[in-house]
C-alpha cells in the first residue's frame, strides 16, 4: 500500500512538472465544453424553401402562407422554372422545393384529392427526415382545416375530432444542449483517460525509465494501480469542472444524485484506464499507441449513441455495445442528470460497467510484463 502511495506521488509530481500536460488537463475540458456544446445540434430550424406555384389559387396561397407562418420554414425563392428550382437545390441555396401543380385549388374545391410535389435535399438523412416531418405537419394541418370547413358545409352537427397535445418531459423546449452535455462530459473523460494514461506508460518505455522500475520488487498490480489513480482523480476533477461550467454557462438541469453520477464515472474511468494501459502494454512507441487508441476511441464513440439514437442501431451493434463502456456511461449520465434516475434504474449500466472495468484492468495487469 505504501509503495503505491510513493508511485502515485511520483506521477503527480511528473504531471505538475509537465507544463503542457498540466495546462491541457484544464484547458481541454474548457475548450471542449465551450466549442462542442453549442455547436452540436441537430435542430433543424430554418428550412429554406423554393416555391413553384403553378396554380395561383386561393387554396395554394393559403398553403404557402401556412409554410411562411411555420417556425421551421422560410420561403426564400419563388419561381416558375423547374430548372431554376432544381439548380437552387443542387447548389444548396435552398433545402426543399415545393411544386403546387395547376388544378390544385380546383381539385380541392370539387372535393377531390389534390396533388402536391415536394423535393427535399436529403444528403443529410436526419435533416431530410425532419424536414419531411415538418412538411407533413403543415400539410396535415391544412387538410384538417379543409375537412372541417367541408364538414360545416355538409352541416354535420358534430365533428368528431381527436385532439393531440404534445408535451416533452425533462426538456420542455427540446434544448439540444441538455441532450449533448452529458454525452460530451463522457467524451471528455474518455479522452483524458485514454490519451494521458496510455501515452504516459508508453513514454516510460520509450525513454527507458520503466526498466529501473521493472528490476524493483514492485508488484504488477501496484504499478498499474499507481498509473490509474492519478488519472482517475484528474478525470473526476475534470468531470466536476465540466459540470460546474455546464451549470454556469448553459444552465443544465441536474435532477439526479451527484454521488451516483461520480460513482458511475469512477467505474467507467477504471474501465477506460484499464483498456488504455492494456493497449500501451502492446505498443512500443507513442505514435503506435496513439493510433490504436484513436481507433478504439473512434469506434467506441461512434457506436455509443451519442449522436444518434441507440435504438436505431442494428442488433449486432447493440450487442457489441455491451462491452462499450462509452455507450453505458452516456446512457447512464443522461438518465441520472436529466431524468433523475436512481441507482435501481441504472443498476444494469453500473453492473456492466463494473464487469468491463474488472475485465480490462485484469487484462492490463496480466499483459504488463516486468521483463526487458
Amino acid at each position, binding site marked *: 500500500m505504501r509503495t503505491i502511495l510513493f508511485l502515485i506521488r511520483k506521477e503527480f509530481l511528473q504531471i505538475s512538472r509537465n507544463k503542457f*500536460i498540466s495546462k491541457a488537463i484544464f484547458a*481541454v475540458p474548457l475548450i471542449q465544453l465551450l*466549442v462542442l456544446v*453549442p*455547436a452540436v445540434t*441537430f435542430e*433543424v430550424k*430554418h428550412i429554406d424553401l423554393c416555391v413553384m406555384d403553378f396554380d395561383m389559387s386561393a387554396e395554394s396561397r393559403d398553403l404557402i402562407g401556412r409554410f411562411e407562418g411555420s417556425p421551421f420554414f422560410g420561403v426564400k425563392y419563388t419561381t416558375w422554372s423547374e430548372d431554376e428550382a432544381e439548380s437552387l437545390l*443542387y447548389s*444548396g441555396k435552398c433545402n426543399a422545393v415545393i411544386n403546387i401543380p395547376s388544378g390544385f385549388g380546383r381539385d*380541392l374545391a*370539387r372535393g*377531390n384529392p*389534390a*396533388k*402536391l*410535389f*415536394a423535393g*427535399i435535399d*436529403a444528403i443529410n*438523412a436526419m*435533416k*431530410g*427526415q*425532419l424536414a419531411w*416531418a415538418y*412538411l*407533413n*405537419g403543415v*400539410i*396535415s394541418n*391544412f*387538410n384538417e382545416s*379543409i375537412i372541417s370547413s367541408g364538414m360545416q358545409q*355538409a352541416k354535420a352537427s358534430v365533428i*368528431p*375530432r*381527436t*385532439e393531440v*397535445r*404534445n*408535451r416533452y*418531459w425533462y426538456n*420542455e423546449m427540446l434544448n439540444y444542449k441538455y441532450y449533448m452535455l452529458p454525452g460530451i462530459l463522457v467524451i471528455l473523460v474518455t479522452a483524458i483517460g485514454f*490519451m494521458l494514461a496510455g*501515452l504516459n506508460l508508453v513514454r516510460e518505455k520509450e525513454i527507458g525509465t520503466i526498466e529501473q522500475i521493472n528490476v524493483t520488487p514492485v508488484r504488477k498490480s501496484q504499478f498499474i494501480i499507481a498509473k490509474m489513480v492519478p488519472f482517475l482523480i484528474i478525470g473526476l476533477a475534470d468531470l466536476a469542472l465540466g459540470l460546474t461550467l455546464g451549470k454556469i454557462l448553459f444552465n443544465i438541469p441536474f435532477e439526479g444524485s451527484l454521488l451516483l453520477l461520480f460513482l458511475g464515472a469512477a467505474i467507467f474511468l477504471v474501465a477506460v484506464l484499464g483498456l488504455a494501459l492494456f493497449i500501451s502494454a*502492446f505498443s512500443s512507441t*507513442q*505514435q503506435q499507441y496513439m*493510433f490504436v487508441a*484513436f481507433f478504439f476511441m*473512434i469506434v467506441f464513440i461512434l457506436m455509443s449513441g451519442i*449522436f444518434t*439514437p441507440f435504438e*436505431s442501431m442494428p442488433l449486432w*451493434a447493440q450487442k457489441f455495445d455491451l462491452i462499450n463502456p462509452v455507450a453505458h456511461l452516456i446512457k447512464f449520465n443522461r*438518465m441520472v442528470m*436529466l*431524468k433523475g434516475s436512481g441507482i435501481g*434504474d441504472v443498476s444494469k449500466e453500473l453492473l456492466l460497467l463494473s464487469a468491463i472495468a474488472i475485465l480490462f484492468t485484469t487484462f492490463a495487469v496480466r499483459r504488463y510484463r516486468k521483463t526487458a
Partner: protein
Amino acid sequence: MKRFLGFVKKEFLHIFRDYRTLIILFGIPAAQILIFGFVVSTDIKDAGLAILDLSKDETTRKISGKIYSSGFFRNTGTLNGYNDIGQVFRQGRTKAVLIFESGFGDKLIKEGRATVSIVADGSEPNVATLVSNYASAIISDFNREMNLSLLSSSPVVQPEVRMYFNPSLKSHFMFVPGVITLIMILICALMTSVTITREKEFGTMEVLLVSPLRPIQIILGKVTPYFLLSFINIITILVLSWLVFGLPVKGSLVLLLLETMLYIMMSLTLGILISTVSKTMQQAIFISAIGLLLPTILLSGFIFPIENMPKIYDYVSSIMPPRYFIVIIKNIMIKGTGFQFVWKETLVIALMTILFTVISVKKFSLRLQQ
C-alpha cells in the same frame, strides 16, 4: 535526385516495418465507413411506447392498435396511473407515453372532442421529435378516416415527396464525404506532424540536417509516403462505399481525384506547420487532435448542420479547410455537379495550401538560423 529517392525509400520502410501503424492506417477508414454505413443510423424503428388509457373503450383500443401495428412503435407496457410515467421514463426503455383522457370515447361521440396527450422523453430531443411526429401523424390519419366515413368526398392534399440525392435516407450519404475528409486530416496532418516532431524530439533531425540532403528534400521525403498512403486510402474508401453501399461517384472521377490531391497537399502543409510549432510529440498530438480532429468532426458540417449553430461558429468554421472540401466532395460525388459548382471552394483550399507553405518555410529557416 537519387539521394532523395533513397531517402523516400527509407521513410517508406520505416512506415511499413511498423505493421501495427499500417493496420490502423487502413483499419480506421474501413471501420469508420462500415460503422457509419451500418450502425450510425437516424431511423427510428421500434421506439418504445407505453399507453396510459384512462378510458379503456373501443375507440382507445382502436387507436392503440393502429399505433402499435404501424411498425414504428414497440409496446413497452400499459400504465396504471400518472405516477408510472416518470418511472418508465427513468428506466429508459420507453420513449413516449400516450395518455387517453377518461371517458375518451364518450366525449368523442357526444362532444365531438376528445384529447389524447403524447408525452415524449425530451432528454433525447431527436427521438422525441420524431416519435411524437409519428404518433401525431397516425392519430391524424385516424381522424381523417373517421371523418371521411361521414363525408362523400375527400378534399385532401396528398403530398408526393421526393428525397433528392438520397432517396432511401441512408446516413452514409453524408458520412462518406465526412470520413474521407477526416481520414485525410488524420493521416496527413497528424502523422506528418508527429513523425517530424519525433525526429526533433529524439535529436535525429540534427543528423538529417547536417546530411547533404537539403531541408526541402528532407521535408518532401517525409511527406511523400503519406501522400501516397492517403491517396490509396481514399481509393479504398471510394471502392468500399461503392461495393458495400452502392454509392458510386456520380460526377467526374478525375475531377474528384484531382481535388483530393489538392486537399492532401493542404493537409500535409498543415502537418508540417504544426511540426514547426510543437516541441514534443505529445504537443503535436494534442494540437492535431484538439485543433484539427474535433473541428473537422464538428464544424465542417459533416454531422451537424452548420446553419443551425450560433453565428460565431459559422465564422470560425469558415477558416477550417474541411468545410470547403466537404462541399466539393458532396457536389462531385453525390450530386454529380461539375467544376463550375466548386471552383470557389477549390480556390480557397489552394490559397490555404500556399499560405501554410509560406509560413512553414519561414518558421523552418528561422529555426535553422538559430
